[in-house]
């Protein structure tokens, strides 16, 4: 599958104006991260790789565990109560995905931004206050959503890229997208979203996963000053 990718400058982080999260003041629940890793064949088709995904799941969980201590607040894993309605959680995850995709499409790409979303510093996105009714979120202040999807380009794909460049057909090698969002459980507001369609960090190894998580959590509100993220643009 070929994809025409116009060269756009994409913004990566949105924060609700005036939102502050003081360290040590909030309980954050991390929802089960959505992690998908596979290879991209010459045809651009996604080939899931269970071993890579299992590695990534483990590495990202470990990296998130490490990062949590530097987020300045208590971050606990989401525990789905036994009597929970799985369809309701699935529907909220799809709503979050739709919202995140909309933020990327209609706010982070300035050329495609909706005029009402253009005003300075504006960031108004929400899942609705009913998100608090999700079982398992009682007592939480914020819900943290994390999604990563990686398609590693095969050698054939990279060769194709060269030919495609000659033919002036833009072909991307690999997909490395991810987004992390923080939702205020009481209001349903998306107070912070960090999203990038071309992320760095090979999630299949521990070090790469740490880099990915650093990028995902870049700009996380209330984060005490930590080591600067140096490798952000290196992967592009």
């Amino acid at each position, binding site marked *: *599958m*070929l994809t025409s990718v116009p060269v756009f400058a994409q913004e990566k982080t949105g924060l609700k104006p005036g939102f502050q999260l003081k360290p040590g003041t909030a309980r954050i629940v991390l929802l089960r991260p959505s992690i998908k890793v*596979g290879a991209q*064949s*010459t*045809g*651009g*088709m996604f*080939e*899931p*790789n*269970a*071993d890579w*995904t299992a590695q990534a799941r483990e590495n990202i969980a470990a990296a998130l565990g490490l990062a949590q201590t530097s987020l300045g607040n208590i971050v606990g894993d989401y525990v789905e109560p036994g009597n929970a309605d*799985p*369809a309701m959680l*699935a*529907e909220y995850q799809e709503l979050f995905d739709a919202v995140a995709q909309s933020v990327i499409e209609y706010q982070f790409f300035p050329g495609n931004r909706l005029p009402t979303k253009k005003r300075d510093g504006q960031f108004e996105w929400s899942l609705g206050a009913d998100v608090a009714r999700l079982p398992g979120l009682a007592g939480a202040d914020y819900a943290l959503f994390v999604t990563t999807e990686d398609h590693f380009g095969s050698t*054939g794909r990279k060769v*194709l890229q060269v*030919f*495609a460049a000659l*033919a002036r*057909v833009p072909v991307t090698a690999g997909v490395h997208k991810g987004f992390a969002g923080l939702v205020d459980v009481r209001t349903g507001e998306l107070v912070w979203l960090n999203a990038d369609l071309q992320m760095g960090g090979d999630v299949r190894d521990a070090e790469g996963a740490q880099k990915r998580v650093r990028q995902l959590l870049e700009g996380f509100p209330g984060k005490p000053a930590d080591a600067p993220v140096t490798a952000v643009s290196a992967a592009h």
Partner: protein
Amino acid sequence: MRWRIAAALTIGMASTPAMAANKVAPLPPYVAAYQPTNVDERGAWMMADEDERHLRDAADVIRDPALNAYVRGVLCRTVGEDRCKSVRLYILRVPAFNATMTANGTMTIWSGALLRLRNEAELGAVLGHEFGHFELRHTLSSFRNRRSGSDLMAWASILVANSGAMQISTIGGFYAFDRAQETSADMIGVRYLATSRYPSAAAADVWDRIMGEADATAIGRHRKANQKYVAGFFATHPTNLARATYLRAAAQEIGDGGSAAADAYRAALAPWLPTFLADQVKLNDFGGSEFVLAQLAADGWTTPLLFARAELYRERGNPRDLVSAAGFYQDAIARGDAPPEAYRGLGLSLLRSQQIEPGKVALRDYLRRKPDAGDAALISTLVDS
């Protein structure tokens, strides 16, 4: 005896009937609880697991316990109890003829298939075919084939200007099996039927009607009836004609009997028939829908079939269609068990045919029979104006 012939048959299909006479191979012993081994295989299973997780919550799964138990029962009677245990079966409300099987044992059958099948034997033929893919572990090797097929398309799309449609069709076949796999699943499917209580001739009957419907759809859309009787270079499935032919030959060789259980099938489907018919009628496929209805009416036009046919004609809405529609509604009403909506349809057809007063009479009948209908207020304005 039946067992031997069935076994001989498979080999016969693989080589020649003459060879088959000497060798007798029963169904392969079934290995339950197979676990994936290599990287490709585990990847396919993981994706199937994720898909199934998704399916569990999807809106288009039909959860009616009675219908699920019935369809599962037919699967078990076809492939046997031990094989049937390894399958999770989902009935999807999608008005197209299809059934699917994934590497991890997730089987789906679509409502469009349930509508078109006529008896338990035909349902068993379709489910057995899908189970054949699972037993022969086709999903994995098809994943490898797909990879190379897709590679070819990416190269072609740089060289060929108008390649959009080609890409779509490749992806459209994402879960498709290749031609040889389809044929072997067909043949193991016939063997399940031969060893079951159902007659193995049912499999060929299904494909005969699929061909007829495809032709009817094309003619209804003012195109040539373009059944390809030779599989093209890119075709993943054997042509339907080839399928019907070799399945018919196989059944004749087996020569088994047994009841196809048409009455039981009709009774089990009855609660869902009006819904499935309505889904079909709303597809804007006049020719195909007429064909399906005529097939279902082979033993006579029942009330739900008459009503669906009337809706189909009213939806197309040419002046002559409206006259036909009114006639079918009246036929349905004359049978005494028509739904209130038959009066609604009759009234609207007559109104559109400029038969204002008879139309209003029918609409008043509708409102009397269903005073709390969702569109009662609107229909009232048509009656009063």
